[in-house]
């Protein structure tokens, strides 16, 4: 076989569907930013697909700060943080974010995916055990698997099951308990206060990925620790800066000792080019905005989510039970899920389909992020579009 023919993407169910319904929801070629409306092929679409919850990716204050940073530092440090990439702005940002989160120290990774892999790859050892929520994000799972230790998944958001598992696991050196704060396909929030209590009781290291929580939950947008009123958190905290914060990158916050251990031992940090300073500048500004306006932003975000969620529910649509700012309409099969996305697209609305294996078989959903800058007219357009699709194609929705 020729080398160029070794990795041909075989026809899968998705391919067949895409051809059959003549619509590909993946890799849409967008020729604008992640604004409220995105442009695709010269047409405007209401953007409910992006994780730009707070509309910060186009915030003028952030862009100005990033432009200043570009002028000062250029495009990249062209070096790893340990060599020549550790500019002053990183240290300032780390101090600022640590204070924001009430944690001792913080470091930056090129993405939260890399951060999650680094945490387990670096800190967990073969003789350890990791308890992980059954629905945890792929990056956490990949990181956990890379550690080569015992993995014990616990039922989704079920601290009782977790405790049973912990009680039966006394032959391991270290125990880690891993969860996301907000599970982004459905919008459920982890009972992290209970999980954290178990960690303290059984001397396990808690690891929470707050990627969909930071800026979104907690009274002032400070994320899961604020939401669950956890103070003096002693575990490991990771988050993406590419969602509500509107930039790109990943952070790990923890104790001084843990962060210092990662700083000198995690290969995905040591051998990756440092995040460009321009991204750090944008991240600091985003944190400053949340610090100053978080309460107002979170309240508007919750209002939009509540409006969309309750109206769709009252129209008879079946939605995942979401506590965070995510609305996921249940569509069941892969085919139904793709078709609903297509019909919404024809009504100028961009959404995200989740099909197997991202969700269980025949548990497909169409996910929408009811971002902060949506107004009532736009939300009504979404609700009316669902209603119209349901009138024409009632078979596409779970009832």
């Amino acid at each position, binding site marked *: 076989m020729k080398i160029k023919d070794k990795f041909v993407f075989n026809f899968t169910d998705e391919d067949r569907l895409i051809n059959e319904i003549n619509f590909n929801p993946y890799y849409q070629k967008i020729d604008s930013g992640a604004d409220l409306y995105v442009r695709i092929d010269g047409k405007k679409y209401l953007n409910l697909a992006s994780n730009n919850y707070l509309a910060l990716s186009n915030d003028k204050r952030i862009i100005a700060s990033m432009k200043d940073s570009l002028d000062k530092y250029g495009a990249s440090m062209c070096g790893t943080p340990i060599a020549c990439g550790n500019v002053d702005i990183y240290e300032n940002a780390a101090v600022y974010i640590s204070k924001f989160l009430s944690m001792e120290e913080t470091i930056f990774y090129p993405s939260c995916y890399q951060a999650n892999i680094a945490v387990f790859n670096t800190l967990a050892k073969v003789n350890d055990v990791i308890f992980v929520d*059954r629905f945890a994000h792929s990056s956490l799972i990949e990181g956990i698997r890379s550690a080569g230790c015992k993995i014990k*998944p616990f*039922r989704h958001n079920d601290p009782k099951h977790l405790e049973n598992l912990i009680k039966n696991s006394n032959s391991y050196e270290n125990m880690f308990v891993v969860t996301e704060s907000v599970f982004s396909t459905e919008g459920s929030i982890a009972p992290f206060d209970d999980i954290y209590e178990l960690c303290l009781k059984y001397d396990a290291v808690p690891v929470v990925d707050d990627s969909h929580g930071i800026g979104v939950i907690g009274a002032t947008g400070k994320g899961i620790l604020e939401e669950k009123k956890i103070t003096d958190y002693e575990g490991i905290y990771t988050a993406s800066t590419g969602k509500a914060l509107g930039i790109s990158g990943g952070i790990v916050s923890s104790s001084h000792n843990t962060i210092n251990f990662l700083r000198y031992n995690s290969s995905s940090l040591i051998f990756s080019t440092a995040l460009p300073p321009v991204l750090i500048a944008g991240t600091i500004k985003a944190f400053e905005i949340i610090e100053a306006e978080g309460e107002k932003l979170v309240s508007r975000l919750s209002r939009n989510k509540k409006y969309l969620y309750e109206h769709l529910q009252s129209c008879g649509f079946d939605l995942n039970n979401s506590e965070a700012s995510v609305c996921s309409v249940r569509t069941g099969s892969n085919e139904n899920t793709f078709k609903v996305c297509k019909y919404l697209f024809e009504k100028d609305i961009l959404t995200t389909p989740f099909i197997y294996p991202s969700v*269980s*078989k025949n548990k497909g959903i169409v996910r929408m992020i009811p971002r902060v800058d949506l107004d009532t007219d736009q939300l009504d357009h979404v609700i009316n579009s669902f209603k119209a699709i349901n009138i024409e194609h009632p078979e596409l929705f779970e009832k």
Partner: protein
Amino acid sequence: MATIEKIKKIIFDNIDNKVNIEDHTNLRNDLEVDSFDVLMIMNGIEDEFAISLEENDFKEINTPLEIQKLLKDKYGVL
């Protein structure tokens, strides 16, 4: 409770797809379990029978009866 019934209960308790589980129910084809389901089932079996399974034990195993056979042949669970 007989070993096979204990195995079926562990499977039932650890999957979302709440269907009736028979001796010959195929975990992958009938229940569509994923790798995390398998891990949860393996952990449940380890706790129930106080044994330590090897990662590869479940590679070729598909039904409660096959699990019972594995437990008997390799781990002496009667």
